């Protein structure tokens, strides 16, 4: 039986003890835009819960947000296409701290986490092949970090 908005909200509250938010705080919570924030210790547990209990089989994307000294937000969105349910998962890690990998649960996380490592420098523990995806392999630094100097010289072309 596919989960509805009410059953999903109840399940998240019971399991994690947090209130799911909407994308926009001014509007009521929508089943397509649930946002759940958890500490990093429960990150894999939340993904497993989303896949098995809520039936979110479609891995949409995984990215990060740099909040400078406060750390980085790892943001991941999964969807249950039959039930019209979308779940955005968030966790906060300190700068230069590792994050557990979701590759054991979702195949689609393989390249997404490689890209996230490439551009943000987050080391995903448990990832089988954590190499750079987009930039050249001899690139220095991670360009989407806020402390990355854009004018970093790259000989011989700059």
């Amino acid at each position, binding site marked *: 039986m596919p989960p509805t908005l009410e059953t999903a909200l109840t399940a998240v509250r019971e399991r994690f003890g947090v209130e799911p938010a909407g994308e926009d705080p001014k509007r009521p919570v929508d089943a397509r835009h649930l946002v759940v924030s958890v500490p990093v210790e429960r990150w894999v547990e939340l993904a497993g819960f989303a896949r098995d209990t809520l039936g979110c089989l479609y891995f949409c994307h995984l990215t990060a947000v740099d909040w400078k000294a406060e750390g980085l937000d790892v943001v991941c969105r999964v969807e249950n296409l039959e039930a019209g349910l979308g779940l955005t998962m968030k966790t906060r890690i300190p700068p230069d701290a590792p994050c557990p990998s979701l590759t054991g649960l979702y195949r689609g996380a393989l390249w997404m986490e490689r890209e996230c490592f490439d551009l943000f420098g987050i080391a995903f523990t448990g990832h089988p092949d954590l190499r750079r995806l987009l930039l*050249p392999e001899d690139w220095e630094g991670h360009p989407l970090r806020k402390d*990355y100097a854009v004018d970093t010289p790259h000989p*011989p*072309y*700059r």
Partner: protein
Amino acid sequence: MKIPTPKIPPAEWEEFKDLQEWVKHRQERIDGDQTSETFAALADRLEHFPGGWLMVASTDKLFNWARKSSIWPVTFGLACCAIEMMATFASRFDVERFGMVPWASPRHADLMIVSGTVTIKMAPMLKRIYEQMADPKWCISMGSCANSGGPFRHGYHVVKGVDRVVPVDVYVPGCPPTPESLMFGILKLQERVGEFQRTGHRSAPAPAPD
């Protein structure tokens, strides 16, 4: 069964630390790669023979006419400018009347139209393709991105102008340039090819009209 892996020799650009070094090397190679000394001596004699300059000059004219009437561009589309380049090659703005045939092999081409954004990751491949072209060869930088980096100039990954990678003869401005602009650039290049000298050196740029 073990699949054989092809052995690719390292590209020439890998030995150089910066562009100035590469340009110096390339200039030395061009200087050392001229017509043989016998031929140069013969041409010199012929030129100083009474009336011989007529023959040399007309041969120059003939060769340059042949060169500029059959410029084959290697298709090097990188971004949205490539759409305009394809439109230029297509039937409406038919460049085949200038003798241009878009060719998918650098070995047969005389001209490289760099149409689009050159990223730092793409620059070594671009340089390698340019080096695979046979001399004499020319390069047109098409669009703002290839000219200077364009709107992506302040990004972390874009080469700020393709002239940092290969020597450029004609810059075509625009974002993207219309086919008419590119055709104007091609005609400018033809003028430039018409000044190409017998020895293979580029001629001095024409003085600016007053």
